[in-house]
Every structure is written in C-alpha cells, then in structure tokens.
C-alpha cells in the first residue's frame, strides 16, 4: 500500500470558525496519516475521533515531553527535542510521577468545589461588566472581559496578587506565541517561573487561604521547585485557555444570530451551549502529542516505539463518524464526547472550573448587553492562528 506523507501540520484557515480544511480532507482519506515533522522525524497525524480517543486513553502512548518530536515550528524554525518536564509540570509526565502531582490537586477541582465558586465567579463577571459600562458603549472584549475574568479567578484560587498580573500575562502570551523564537519563549517562561517561585517562598513563611499555601501544607515532601512547577502550570493553563473560549465563543454566538436567539429564548440551554462551543471551536489547535513507548498496532497501522503522534483535537471534534452535521454550530445538539479537554488520565484538570466560568460569563454577557454587537466586520477580527491556543487577539464590540 502506498501512503501519503503530509509535510507539516495543516495550519491555514479559510474562516474564523472552521479548522484548516486540509484536516478534513486528510481525515476523510484515513483517520491516521503519516506526518513528516519539521525536524525530519516520520511520525503520525491523527484526525479521527475514535483514534484520538484511543491514543489518549492508552498508557503505551507517553506524555513525557523529552520523548516528543514537535510538530509546530517556532519563529519559523523547527523546535528540536524538549528537555524533560521540570518538577511539578505534570502535564509532561507519565505515571507514577504524573499521578503523584495530579492526586494532590484533584480534590481541589471537583465538580462540587467548582460549583461552590459560582457566586464569586458571578461577582467577578458582573464587576467586569460594570467597568465596561462605566467606560462607555464599546470595548475590546478580550482586554475588558475575556482575559480579566479567568485571570482574576485563577489568581484568587492560587493566591497570586492580581495587581502583579502584568508580570506574567505578557510573558505567558510570549511563551505561547509561535512567532517567538525558542529562546524568547524559554526566557518568558523562566520569568513566569521566577515570579511564582518568589511567591511560593512568601507563602511558606506567610501561608494564606489559597491553593499554593494548601499544596505546601498538604505534602511536606514537596519542595519549592515542585510547588512552583504546579503553580506555573495552573496559572498558564488556567487563564489563556478560558480567555480564548470566552472571546471566540462570543464571536461565534454573535455570528450565529439564530443560535444566540435560541439561547436567549431558553437560558437553560447555557450548559449545552458551552459544550457545543467547546466542540465547535477547539482552541487547543496543535498541542496534543503522544509518543509510543513500545510498538503498538492501532487503527490498522503499526506504530513503532519512539514515533510521535500529533493528535488533532479540532479534527476529532468535526469527525462525521462521531457527530452528525459536524460543521454546523447547533446549541441544541449533544456535543457529549467532544475532545476539547482531551481524554485519558491527563484530561483537563481545570475543566469544571472552565465550565463554570464560561456558563456564568456568557449568560451574564448576553443578559446584561441585550444588543451586544461586533463593531467591525467578521473578517477584520484578528485571529490567533499564530498561537498554540487558538482564539481572537481582540474583539471590538459595542452596545447601547
């Protein structure tokens, strides 16, 4: 059998709403293609829902960062291999290390704990909306709402003074921007780490009622580097992601007036709308990666030990074998089983928090601004096609 080998990940989008069309073409051909990585490695690009799910659910496929070949380029040069995950950065580890760190946090992120935060999240959301009103009848929704809401929430949870956010927000953005060179990204990342390390030291001497202090108290064997790594992971994973869903989700709802009208007519559709937004707009556009620890037969293919699989969550979420009319945005469908938070033991730890933030955020936004509208044509909205996390760079909106 001859195989098509794709060179480089498809990255060109035709419009703000759909993943690169080439992903759909590849998935149609076969849900698992050979992919030539920028460093020359011959690995795989997985686009089918069932196979993405299988790979993420199978521990023979490793999350260890030092094993991965990287499918994206940075500053237009291939990224070589990455070093092993630093202490506490459990997203890039396998069991038992991954389990040890994750277990220390799962009790903090349960559905019940997150529901208890609802009132506080609502307060934060209404506070931002009040500020938007005070400033007039137009705003960039990203800077006025989408970014501050999750930043305030995660800062409060972790015990990061919000006034000090400028020292990490810009650095986080630099680290996630694909145009940044490897050196720039690493330097920005190190600055975020220095900031959290300093905070961890302060918490050791003056504990507060927050998650970093809680971690320090929960396990006396955790050293500062480990708590710092966990803190950095939560801070970065916890604000850029939800922020982009809030921005892009608002654009999606404003661009689908019939769907927005359905939600307005029946506010109880909000939970379902959030799941459908997650499915339809899959912001983790490139990053999900696994490397085979041993030879594995999967999807009729023989994957060899050491081969890296790039898992396309956007393609999986548009797979017609899983979702009917996958390219339609429909707030009344069941989007259950979407891959936006991943699958397997690394499935997003903060997903219940993200859900609360999105449900409360969208509901309040469209309730408080009944005539919210885009202030520019859709094709002038700057898109984050150049970032590891997809979304909008800015979203000019107006109201009366």
């Amino acid at each position, binding site marked *: 059998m001859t195989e098509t080998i794709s060179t480089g990940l498809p990255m060109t989008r035709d419009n703000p709403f759909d993943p690169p069309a080439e992903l759909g073409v590849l998935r149609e051909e076969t849900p698992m293609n050979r992919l030539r990585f920028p460093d020359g490695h011959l690995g795989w690009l997985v686009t089918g829902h069932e196979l993405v799910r299988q790979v993420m659910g199978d521990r023979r496929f490793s999350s260890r960062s030092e094993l991965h070949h990287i499918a994206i380029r940075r500053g237009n040069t291939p990224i070589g291999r990455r070093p092993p995950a630093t202490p506490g950065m459990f997203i890039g580890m396998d069991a038992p290390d991954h389990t040890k760190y*994750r*277990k220390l946090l*799962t009790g903090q992120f*349960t559905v019940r704990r997150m529901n208890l935060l609802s009132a506080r999240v609502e307060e934060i959301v209404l506070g931002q909306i009040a500020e938007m009103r005070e400033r007039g009848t137009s705003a960039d929704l990203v800077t006025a709402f989408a970014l501050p809401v999750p930043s305030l929430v995660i800062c409060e949870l972790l015990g990061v003074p919000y006034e000090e956010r400028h020292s990490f927000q810009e650095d986080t953005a630099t680290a996630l921007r694909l145009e940044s060179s490897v050196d720039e990204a690493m330097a920005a990342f190190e600055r975020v780490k220095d900031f959290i390390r300093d905070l961890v030291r302060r918490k050791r001497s003056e504990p507060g009622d927050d998650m970093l202090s809680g971690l320090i108290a929960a396990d006396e064997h955790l050293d500062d580097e480990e708590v710092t790594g966990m803190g950095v992971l939560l801070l970065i994973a916890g604000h850029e992601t939800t922020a982009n869903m809030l921005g892009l989700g608002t654009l999606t709802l404003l661009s689908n007036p019939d769907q927005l009208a359905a939600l307005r007519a029946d506010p109880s559709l909000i939970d379902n709308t959030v799941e459908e937004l997650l499915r339809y707009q899959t912001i983790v556009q490139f990053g999900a990666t696994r490397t085979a620890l041993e030879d594995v037969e999967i999807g009729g293919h023989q994957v060899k030990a050491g081969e890296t699989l790039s898992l396309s969550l956007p393609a999986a979420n548009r797979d017609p074998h899983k979702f009917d009319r996958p390219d339609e945005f429909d707030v009344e469908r069941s989007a*259950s*089983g979407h891959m936006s938070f991943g*699958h*397997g033991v690394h499935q997003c730890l903060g997903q219940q928090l993200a859900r609360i933030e999105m449900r409360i955020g969208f509901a309040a936004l469209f309730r408080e601004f009944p005539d919210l509208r885009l202030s520019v044509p859709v094709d002038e909205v700057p898109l984050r096609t150049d970032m590891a996390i997809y979304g909008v760079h800015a979203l000019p909106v107006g109201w009366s």
Partner: protein
Amino acid sequence: MKVEADATKCCGSGMCVLTDPDVFDQSEDDGTVVVLDAEPAASHHAAAREAAALCPAGAITVHE
C-alpha cells in the same frame, strides 16, 4: 443494572458527576469517584452508561 467504579484508576476529571450527580460523587480528599447508587433506577440507566463511556480513565463499569 449494577454500577462499579475503580477509584485507583480514577483521575478525578469529574465527568461522571457532571453526567449524573445522583449516581456518582467525588471524594472530598482526592476527588476520586464514589458510587452513590450502585443499582440505579431505570431512569438513570442512560446517564450511567454515558458516564462509563465518557470516563477518561476507564474507571467505571456498568453491568446490565
């Protein structure tokens, strides 16, 4: 129907509680799965099956 969960496999994603909070809960200490109703009424069968299918760690089994 009989619902079983293996807390040692659980990764605390909360998907089961989100799907049917009458059948599943999460422990206060480490967020792992607790089965509240091991023999749920017929009205919960579909949700229990969905929870088993969604569980990211394959920790839930449903015996029909």
